[in-house]
């Protein structure tokens, strides 16, 4: 069996390490070797004890691990640059897509990864002492509608509603979605909504918090709010069972 045949259950990325990759510095975990790959040796122990600064990777000197990502200060970015970037994102996805449905799926997928990451970052920034883990559907929705939305878009979403007919459907409503503020959909694009990207962010956050859901964006314009968007959140049936078992 060659090295390529070894299946690494945990590593899906391109840069997977094989069993023959041995760390020269003694640091760095190799999933195909296991804990033996980064076990402490007399040399590394010496480095750890004496706080020697060593360069492990080209970016070690300016590594993110040395930086504080916990600051409460609001970092603002220019809406123009964000809009131009998103404009390119839509264009690029559009170029690669087979149709409108496909384009929405792609935008959703791009947002998904942001949601996964932002969820963790957001909880970290809330502070370990003050924040709590969201374990109930209504609480996680309130968190997304409030804190989460505010930290990404600078304001809380406008409404949070529960569907009257279907038990596992909820709606978050934003009157002016920041990301598609300047985008008007041509008539021949049907009911495309570029806020599918935002729906992806919500879906990513909910999924990784193990509230599995499908999130879709729908345009429901009102007078004065031509871009009003409803994010329809459809939770997995199993979730409702879990909820009723745990909290009834």
């Amino acid at each position, binding site marked *: 069996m060659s090295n390529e045949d070894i299946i690494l*259950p945990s590593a899906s990325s391109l840069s997977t390490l094989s069993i023959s990759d041995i760390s020269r510095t003694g640091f760095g975990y190799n999933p195909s070797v296991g804990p033996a790959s980064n076990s402490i040796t007399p040399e590394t122990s010496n480095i750890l004890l004496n706080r020697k600064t060593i360069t492990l990777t080209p970016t070690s000197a300016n590594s993110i691990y040395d930086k504080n990502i916990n600051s409460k200060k609001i970092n603002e970015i220019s809406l123009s640059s964000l809009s131009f970037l998103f404009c390119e994102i839509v264009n690029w996805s559009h170029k690669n897509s087979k149709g409108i449905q496909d384009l929405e799926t792609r935008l959703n997928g791009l947002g998904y*990864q942001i949601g996964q990451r932002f969820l963790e970052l957001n909880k970290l920034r809330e502070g*370990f002492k003050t924040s709590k883990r969201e374990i109930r559907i209504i609480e996680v929705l309130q968190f997304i509608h409030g804190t989460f939305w505010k930290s990404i878009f600078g304001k809380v979403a406008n409404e949070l509603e529960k569907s009257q007919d279907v038990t596992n459907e909820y709606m978050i409503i934003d009157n002016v979605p920041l990301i598609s503020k300047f985008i008007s959909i041509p008539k021949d694009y049907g009911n495309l909504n570029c806020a599918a990207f935002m729906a992806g962010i919500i879906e990513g956050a909910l999924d990784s918090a193990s509230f599995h859901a499908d999130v879709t964006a729908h345009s429901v314009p009102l007078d004065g709010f031509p871009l009003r968007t409803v994010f329809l959140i459809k939770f997995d049936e199993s979730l409702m069972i879990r909820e009723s078992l745990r909290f009834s």
Partner: protein
Amino acid sequence: MSSYYFSIVGTRDNPLYEVEFSSFKTATTSSSTGSSVPGISQFPTNIKEILPFVTNSSLDLIEDFQWTTSSFNLGKIDSFYGLLVYGFITQGNIKFILCFEGSNNNNNGSSAQKYNENSIKQFFVDVNDLYVKCLLNPFYAVNDAITSPDFDLKVKLLAKKYL
């Protein structure tokens, strides 16, 4: 000098990161042969090989427990023939699990144990910080193994600081 086995487990119960080490604090009082180097784990082979299994078996307990509490730190979740298992879970369902051999002399008093639990908690909180930083890397996706040498170094420094 107690040895520790720390692992990060992903959302699909897949290991993302593992490390074995021993406490750096009681390095001088080592009695075992040829182990004057602090930090090197002292697990006997028969224990060493079951550590991943002990960790894995605790996942069910964590999954049951995670829906009953809204705190991140789960505290002591299991013990297996003297091996204590402590857990921590993030909002994104990533589990941090620490296994170590509990001290045999129980007359140590509860204050020492309290101190120990507190430092474990601090260790978890700081590892969580490191994990989020790792997650911010665009080339890292959720549930990938964490192979960064820098991450490894930082975790070991935390281990030295707290455990």
